[in-house]
Structures are given as C-alpha cells and as structure tokens.
C-alpha cells in the first residue's frame, strides 16, 4: 500500500465507520475492509476509479466533493479521510468544516507548497514550481488550492479545529529528523489528524 495510506490506515480502529473522500481506486478502503472490518464508503467521480472499486468490492459512491456532504448526517462517521485531494476541491474551507460535521475526527494529507524547492523556483526563477510532488504545470494542474503547512494550520485554527497529530514526510515518505527542524521548508507532504476543539 502507498506509504501515506499506510500512515492513515494505522490510525483507524477496527469496526469503525469510515468515509474516504476522493477514494481513487479504493486501495485504502479495500485494506481497511479486509484488515480492520470497517464499515467504509468512498466517494469518487472518476469512471475508471469507480469501476476498479466495484471490481475489488469497495463501497464506492459516485459523488462530486464540490457538491458537498449534505447527504450525510452529523457524526455519521468515526473518521473522515481525504488524502491528497484538498488542493483540488473548489471550497476547501467549507469541505473541511463539513468533514468535522459528518465525522468525529478526520485525516487530511496534502503536498506542501512551502517546500524549499517550490520556494526556490518561485523566488529564483520566477516560475510556478514544478517538482516531483507537484508535477503539473500551472495551466494543466488540477490543484487549484495549494497551500503550505503554515497556511493549513492557520485555517484549522480559524475553524477551531484541533491538530491531534501532525506528521511531515519527504518525497520518499520518510520522516527524517531534520524535516521537523523546519517542516514548512523541508516537508513534502503533510499528514494532519484533526478533531474539534470542543
């Protein structure tokens, strides 16, 4: 399993209710259904992803995240997961709020726009950053709401969300100690486990 998904999977308790936003090919849910007997659902809108999910027996629901989560009750899930998707939705702020309405806790992972390579390209060459962890050029990227760790944490504070755990990894999904000296500079991906402050 993708290393970032493994990090998420480690957080999930057996027999809990899980919602995966932008579940892709259903790798995480497939694993959680088999290993942890969760009651899990994944939302996705890509036709190929949906077919692959069906073929592996994942509970995939065709639903566009930009149309919100209004169809789910408050606290319907123990954990709401969104891996590397928040940067491509129309209203990240609204969706984050919704995640903590329908779930008790949530996990969000995303690429860090404050990584030193990004900063170097923008400051040094005056160009929009293109790197291994952000491979798209400005005109063909699905990533319309990129942010840095620092930006994301400000938003969490705004929304009165509590960061239960933050983990920062490099391109290889290693957690080298130097990254944590200046995570917003050295970290490629952020992994945030969030809950409500109340």
């Amino acid at each position, binding site marked *: 399993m993708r290393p970032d998904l493994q990090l998420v999977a480690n957080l999930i308790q057996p027999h809990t*209710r899980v919602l995966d936003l932008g579940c892709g090919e259903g790798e995480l849910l497939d694993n959680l259904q088999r290993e942890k007997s969760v*009651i899990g*659902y994944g939302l996705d809108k890509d*036709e190929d992803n*949906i*077919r*692959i*999910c*069906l*073929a*592996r*027996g*994942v*509970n*995939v*629901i*065709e639903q566009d995240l930009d149309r919100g989560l209004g*169809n*789910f*009750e408050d606290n*319907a899930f123990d954990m709401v997961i969104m891996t590397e998707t928040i940067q491509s939705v129309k209203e990240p702020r609204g969706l984050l709020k919704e995640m903590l309405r329908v779930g008790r806790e949530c996990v969000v992972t995303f690429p860090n726009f404050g990584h030193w390579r990004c900063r170097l390209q923008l400051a040094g060459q005056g160009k929009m950053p293109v790197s291994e962890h952000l491979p798209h050029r400005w005109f063909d990227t699905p990533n319309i709401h990129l942010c840095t760790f620092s930006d994301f944490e400000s938003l969490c504070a705004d929304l009165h969300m509590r960061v239960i755990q933050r983990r920062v990894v490099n391109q290889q999904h290693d957690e080298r100690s130097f990254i944590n000296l200046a995570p917003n500079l050295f970290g490629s991906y952020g992994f945030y486990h969030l809950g409500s402050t109340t």
Partner: protein
Amino acid sequence: MTAPDATSVGLVSPLLFQYKQPFALQNGTVLPSFDLVYETYGELNQAKSNAVLICHALSGHHHAAGYHQGDRKPGWWEHCIGPGKAMDTNKLFVVSVNNLGGCHGSTGPRSTNPDTGQPYGPEFPQVVVKDWVASQALLANHLNIDHFLAVVGGSLGGMQALQWSIDFPQRVHNAVLIATAAKLTAQNIAFNEIARQAITTDPDYRAGNYRIEDTNPDRGLMLARMIGHVTYLSDDGMANRFGRELKSGDIDNAGDVEFQVESYLHHQGRSFTQRFDANTYLLMTRALDFFDPARETSGDLVAAFEQAQARFLVMSFTTDWRFSPERSKEIVDALIAAGKDVASTVIDSEHGHDSFLLPIDRYTSALRAYLDHAYNVTVRHKGP
C-alpha cells in the same frame, strides 16, 4: 431466427412453475393456486450458489435473453445476459420470471377464475411488489435455490430486488437496483394515472370485461403506451433520434404532415396493443404507485433497511427524469445511514429511463465488475 452468436444463450423455451396451494396476497385475497412462467440461462452449480434472479419492469416478462423458436428478436436484456456478458451465463445460473398478474403466461387477468369459469379480467386481485417477491421465493424453493447470489432489476424490477433484500435478508447476497426508486413521486404517479385513464375511458374497455365481450381497448392502451414512452426518453435523446424529420407530407403546403416522432410513437403504441393486456397494465402501474417499503417503518427508509444483509449496487442514469438519479441517491443515503454495504454510480446517458435496457458500455462494465467480484467472493472462494 437469427443464428445465435457465441455471446447469446441461443434457443430458449419458457418453463412453467405450478404452485398448487393457496397463496395469500397482501390485500387479503387468497389465490387457490398460481402459475409462474419463467426461463433459465446457464447451469446451476452443485453448491447452488450461482443463481441470479432477474425481476422485470412494467411491460417486461420472463423472456430476458436468447431466442424463442422462430423469433428474430432476442429477449429484452440480451446485451446483459449471455456467455461472457455482464451477467455471464458461463458462470451464473440466471432465472427470469413473469410476474403474477402478468399477461405472458403467469396467472393474471387473462387466466380463468376457477370460481366463475370466466377470465378474471378486472376481478384479478391487486398484487403488490411484496406479493411478487413472495411468489418468486416459492419458485426459488421449487428450484432448490436457497439463496441468490444476486437479485437484479431495473425500474419496477429494482423495486422487487429492494423488497427481496428486506423480506428475505438471508436469501440475497447482492441486490442490484437499477434506475429505480424507494417510492414514486407525485409526478410519477400522475403519469401512471393518465395512462390508466386513457385505458379505462376507452369505450372498448367495458369495465375491464373486454375479453368476455370480445373487444379490446386498443386506443386506450396505445395512448397509455405513447405517454409512457415519452416519459422514458429524454428531450435531447428524442431530438437526436427524431429531430423534426418528417415521415410524410410537406410543412410548406397544408395537408397531412407526420413527423418521424409521431410515426414512432404510433408504431410503439400499436405494437403494444398486440402484446399487452390492459388489465395487467392497470395492475402493474398500481403496484408501482403503491410501492413504499418504508410504510411499515413509519416512513423511515433507514429503519426499513435495518434487517437487510445484502450488499447493494445502485445505478441510475443522468437524463432519466422518470426515475431520476435523485431517487437512487435517496436509497443510497438510507443504506449508508443504515450501515449497509452499498456502491453506486450515475451513468452518463442521453436515453432517459430507457437507458437501463440499452447496451451502454460504462453501465454494463460497472455491472460486470460488481458481479464478477460477487461471484469470486461467494462462489469461487467461498469464505469460511
């Protein structure tokens, strides 16, 4: 008959199940006995774990796949059922049944009422989806099928698959609900009532006793079918198919003008009168209107699903406005709230409600992917 290709089940013949004991219906009436006509495709395996039940829609019947002797046209779901198809008869044993109250061989308004020696006609009791499911379960017993790998249906057929999951939770591993609803909207009931009025106000309807009086409400039945047909298509679908093409006449010169779409509807309506019974049409539309499995749980669909054990696949089509994707979403949301296994997809199609009968790639490949997995889990590697 067209030479059947390798992806068709080929020549098939209907079979008859005779239930010779009293059968109590939901409305209290008791049928002294009943017949169901059905077809099967593929082989039932030794463990009897590969059976799939097909439930038909309003104007459907048991002949879902293959060819009857002398016919040029295959069954109504030919593109979904056959060797290598989404419902793969190399692996699955498919059972397709004509419902009680139908007019294709099962006991219905055309059958003889043992009390009078005359056709039941309008006296045939109103059956509902729950009755169909109960009678199908008796057929399953007769075939020694303890549980179905899947119960599959579109439209009114989807309602039966849904009811199966509630009434016989242990007997359904998977329920596939296509272009259906947990209950009809007022608009949908309204269309059914217009169709019924078209039939019952036809002077040849004779209060339903048209067969005894040797007439047939052809005009009413034709009109009912034409109305129905328009609602099964979409605006864009009709525009693309017929446009404003003329069949005959000349708009610039006054006279009889017939648009292609009119000719098409006339043909659909007329051919329907040849193959369908008016009393059955009334009965089937009523069964559609009455369907509401949540009524037993005070309108709470989540509670209605509580006892279901099946996994669900719910599919709908973007331009279907008679059984819109919203109706499917209601089912999906209730299943999620009830903590049931459910997957769902909304297929892009311009063909409206009729889409569920058409060979649409994304639709059939989603169905195939889902059923292949179900088969692999339940039949091939039967779990502990």
